């Protein structure tokens, strides 16, 4: 993701991320129907929520016997990171008028990660929309296929799809680990989140870990300035 990337390489990379992430929709579809949702409900989730981690969290709570309202709270809490992604994207994408409500629907982990490293609005938009729209199309298509096929395609874990997500997140994080500060912040986020896994409902550890790590990062920056 160098700053000198050509428009064409940005589009190719974006479509690659779109394919890898979109294909994971098949496991969401399968897990959704396995959790007791109808095919229609599972597909509506991908169409209207369109934020993978929140969708999995909702289905996870429902599958473990939790109330759909508990699922909603967990899921929206987890979607809180999209608000902060918007903060990073607002200036870079500079969308106004009718474009803003449309653009908002595509604010997710991957479209943000692909866009925020660009230096110009033109390239940021290119990365954001190619990634976001290609994921949207494929994610919904594969959700439908997964929901129809249900458990017939087998446990998504047999294909290592759960490990693929961790690897994708690491690949997105990797280029940002270029300073001691960011390394400490990433490890702090991981450690705090893991500490809260046994204590809080699914999804909450990510919010607490992320928030704690940001505070640690701010404190370290302040100390660095004083020194």
């Amino acid at each position, binding site marked *: 993701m160098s700053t000198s990337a050509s428009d064409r390489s940005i589009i190719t990379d974006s479509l690659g991320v779109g394919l890898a992430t979109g294909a994971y929709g098949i496991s969401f579809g399968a897990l959704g129907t396995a959790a007791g949702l109808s095919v229609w409900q599972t597909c509506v989730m991908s169409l209207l929520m369109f934020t993978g981690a929140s969708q999995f969290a909702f289905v996870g709570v429902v599958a473990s016997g939790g109330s759909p309202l508990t699922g909603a709270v967990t899921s929206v809490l987890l979607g809180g990171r999209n608000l902060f992604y*918007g903060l990073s994207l607002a200036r870079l994408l500079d969308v106004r008028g009718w474009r803003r409500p449309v653009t908002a629907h595509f604010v997710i982990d991957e479209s943000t990660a692909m866009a925020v490293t660009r230096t110009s609005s033109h390239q940021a938009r290119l990365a954001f929309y190619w990634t976001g729209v290609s994921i949207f199309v494929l994610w919904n298509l594969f959700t439908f296929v997964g929901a129809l096929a249900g458990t017939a395609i087998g446990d998504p874990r047999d294909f290592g799809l759960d490990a693929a997500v961790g690897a994708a997140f690491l690949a997105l994080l990797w280029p940002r680990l270029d300073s001691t500060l960011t390394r400490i912040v990433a490890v702090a986020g991981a450690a705090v989140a893991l500490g809260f896994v046994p204590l809080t409902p699914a999804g909450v550890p990510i919010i607490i870990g992320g928030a704690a790590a940001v505070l640690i990062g701010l404190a370290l920056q302040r100390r660095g300035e004083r020194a």
Partner: protein
Amino acid sequence: MSLLWIGILLTAAGCYALKIAGLSVPDRVLDHPLTVRIATLIPVALLGALIAVQVLADGSALRIDARLAALGVAAVLLWWRMPFLVVVGVAAASAALLRLWF
């Protein structure tokens, strides 16, 4: 309407509200140095937390299994500057193979 539908629609509305709110933050807030710092720290902090939970959590327990091995494989491939799709594909395949063998 079933409780499940209510949950789904509430979640969809909430998730969208958060997305649009982030994009609609006024310029004077965006220009604030603290906002700038927080906005650059957030992706790193959240990705760190997301990776840890994705790889080590199993419900409310922590579990070391094929996912951690696959993350190690991904780290090596990233170190070698392999492209994104190779990293993700090989990590998934190594987890799948490990589960097949053990």
